[in-house]
């Protein structure tokens, strides 16, 4: 899943809005009734997630850009891409993705089932023809048997998406110090992390947007994150930007010089350069940050918010955090939002 989001670590100052959102411990992931979880379906989805057959040239799988060893992102500012092309946005983590109401940085998909096929078809991601992908998967007897057992029928793109989604709903940050703290274990946070928590909920105003189970409000904000000058030098990035705008039916796609964010989805001018609030769960593992990976460290992200966001934005105002407050905030995010390490079992592909 590659789209992009501005990582909003903190602190929004809305005129007239003064209350902070409430944080909630991780609970059961919502599961749509049309796609119930079963162990067999999850296992099938896991195999497909790692299977390079789903890309046009057999070099890319979902896991290429959503690597379990890198917080289900890829550790790059701009996500990996189909050979000879360039991506234009950061690979968002899949941790707790089952809790999200919108997928991609611009929120153009509402369900995991809807989202899963986009990167497979995308010219600069997996670049696969879905009719062909169905036939490739259908040519593997083990897959045919698995689809028959799991779905009672043959291989279809919709069922591939359903199985991959079922697997993705298992990617959950569990038993973090924050969860234990919210459940009443007062000593779950170190003293420094507790200071950071107070700033997160108070002066930093982080929780105004980073709230709920996922520490994300599923809304979109135009923070005017700086452009990534290095990637802008690459004409292939501009080609990708024009391509996405073109297939989104944006009339002036040939002259598009920046990432328009949510605007391409809604055509609402207020959504120009707006991106989805991302989860902060497992944030220590999912850098670089923001929709274009412009910030390599959490310190840089916090500085951005502390200074009131990007030039000309009307969402943020300076916070005037002290160096000690910023440090405590980073400690909170690194320590308290990292769940228990769960060893990942890689699938054996047919």
């Amino acid at each position, binding site marked *: 899943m590659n789209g992009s989001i501005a990582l909003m670590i903190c602190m929004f100052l809305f005129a007239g809005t003064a209350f902070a959102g409430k944080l909630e411990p991780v609970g059961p992931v919502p599961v749509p009734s049309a796609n119930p979880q079963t162990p067999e379906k999850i296992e099938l989805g896991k195999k497909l997630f790692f299977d390079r057959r789903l890309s046009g040239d*057999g070099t890319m799988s979902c896991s290429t850009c959503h690597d379990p060893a890198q917080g289900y992102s890829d550790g*790059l500012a701009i996500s*990996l891409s189909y*050979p*000879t092309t360039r991506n234009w946005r950061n690979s968002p983590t899949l941790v707790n993705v089952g809790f999200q109401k919108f997928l991609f940085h611009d929120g153009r998909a509402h369900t995991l089932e809807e989202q899963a096929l986009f990167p497979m078809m995308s010219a600069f991601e997996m670049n696969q023809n879905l009719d062909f992908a169905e036939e490739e998967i259908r040519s593997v007897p083990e897959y045919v048997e698995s689809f028959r057992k799991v779905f009672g029928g043959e291989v279809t793109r919709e069922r591939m998406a359903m199985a991959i989604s079922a697997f993705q709903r298992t990617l959950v940050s569990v038993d973090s110090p924050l969860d234990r703290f919210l459940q009443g274990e007062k000593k779950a946070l170190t003293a420094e992390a507790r200071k950071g928590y107070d700033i997160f909920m108070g002066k930093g105003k982080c929780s105004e947007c980073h709230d709920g189970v996922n520490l994300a409000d599923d809304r979109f904000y135009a923070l005017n994150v700086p452009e990534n000058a290095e990637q802008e030098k690459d004409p292939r990035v501009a080609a990708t930007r024009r391509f996405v705008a073109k297939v989104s039916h944006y009339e002036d796609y040939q002259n598009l010089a920046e990432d328009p964010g949510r605007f391409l989805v809604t055509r609402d001018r207020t959504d120009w350069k707006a991106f989805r609030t991302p989860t902060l769960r497992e944030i220590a593992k999912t850098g670089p940050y923001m929709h274009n990976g412009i910030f390599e460290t959490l310190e840089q992200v916090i500085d951005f918010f502390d200074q009131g966001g990007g030039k000309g934005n009307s969402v943020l105002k300076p916070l005037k955090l002290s160096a000690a407050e910023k440090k405590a905030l980073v400690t909170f995010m690194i320590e308290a939002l990292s769940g228990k390490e769960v060893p990942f079992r890689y699938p054996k592909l047919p």
Partner: protein
Amino acid sequence: MAAGPTVKKIMEIYKGKVRLVIKNYPYKYRDYSRGAAEASLAAREQGKYWEMHDLLIKRSPKLERASLLAYAKELGLDVQKFTASIDGQKFKAEIDRDLKLAESLDLYNTPTFYINGRQVIGERPFEYFRKIIDEELKK
């Protein structure tokens, strides 16, 4: 490998501590990828691997035979020897061996790095490598 500048920086900063081994992995769906690999090795034979490497990256996708020969001339190589090398696919066995190694590692992306066995896929900033190299040097 557009990661060339980062690799050079690593070799400069960790001089004497890091050994660089480069393997070829010409992309199977690019017409000129294999020829470019041959060209870089033909230049290596004449002591100008990095010069050719950098030129190939800079001028890509102009990598057809005529361009390769022009690059050889531009770099002051013995063009006759260079031409014989790429036309005769002198380094075919070496490239085939590299490809086989990549497949045995289930490796499909370029560039991919192995630092004492730790896999890193894709171009990365210097600091990303520094962290891993420092960890490995401490072991």
